[in-house]
């Protein structure tokens, strides 16, 4: 059950991500714009390599999820709560602090940072609550950029 659950979450995460990557690229395709998108997609890779450098000596890197203690309602609650929180937070961020947030390349960077933490979570921590929180953050960012601006 858990394997199909995580697979579905990954698909939910990746579809809006690729959608608004194309949206940013299709505005005007210049060389520096493409460089910016590539840098924001592959931006967290040095941090990921540093974390791998630190934690490479641990034994039993890939753990198993304890399937008997999954509570579906609690994890969907975490998901929707984080979705709502991230949408509200981004609304106030764009209204008061960072004006051109949804036109810039920063949401793609935050989204790929979330993906990096997701892989990190799968490899080292393996908790369902963390997966739900990260998925909620990513979905909230994507939905804010795509529909609410």
């Amino acid at each position, binding site marked *: 059950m858990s394997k199909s659950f995580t697979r579905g979450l990954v698909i939910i995460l990746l579809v809006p991500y690729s959608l608004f990557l194309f949206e940013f690229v299709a505005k005007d395709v210049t*060389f*520096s714009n493409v*460089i*910016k998108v590539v*840098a*924001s997609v*592959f*931006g967290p*890779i*040095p*941090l990921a*390599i*540093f974390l*791998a*450098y*630190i934690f*490479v*000596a*641990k034994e039993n890197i890939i753990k198993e999820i304890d399937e008997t203690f999954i509570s579906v309602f609690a994890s969907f609650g975490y998901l929707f709560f984080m979705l709502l929180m991230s949408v509200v937070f981004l609304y106030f961020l764009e209204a008061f602090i960072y004006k051109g947030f949804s036109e810039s*390349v*920063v949401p793609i*960077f935050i989204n790929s940072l979330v993906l990096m933490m997701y892989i990190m979570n799968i490899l080292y921590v393996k908790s369902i609550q963390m997966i739900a929180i990260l998925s909620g953050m990513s979905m909230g960012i994507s939905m804010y950029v795509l529909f609410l601006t």
Partner: protein
Amino acid sequence: MFTNRSLLFYLQSLIAVFSMAIIGLILVPDLGEQVSAHMLKVTIAPFPSISLLIFLLFVFNKIIRDLDDKIYSLRDIVIGSVIVFLVSVLIFVGTGLALSFMQSIDKKVFLFSIFLGLIVFCLFRISNLYTMAIITGMSEGIILYIIFRY
């Protein structure tokens, strides 16, 4: 021959070199004109850092390689993360200053070769957690500059 940590170290230094080359040498509006105008200066620009690198390689003749598989303590991890944060903030501020003050291509080549020499020195002489943290901070700061400011 290679341990996991040495492979990760080489990969990280490769990423740092590529990101520095992108921000300093490729994202220039008129690259061909500048190179053809300052041909002599571009040719002589890497030589100070090469000579400095050879001097440093002969002076520090002790090799510190700490790349085998062992579990770091919490204090080492915290110090490494603080180094990553400080160096990336420093590079993030310093890249803007350098690109605003140094418009011509030869000075950029000089700076690029200085950092390349630093990375090569870390590869050959001192390679442990803290130099890994320094290289991570360099590449991460440049990527953050490309994303937020460029």
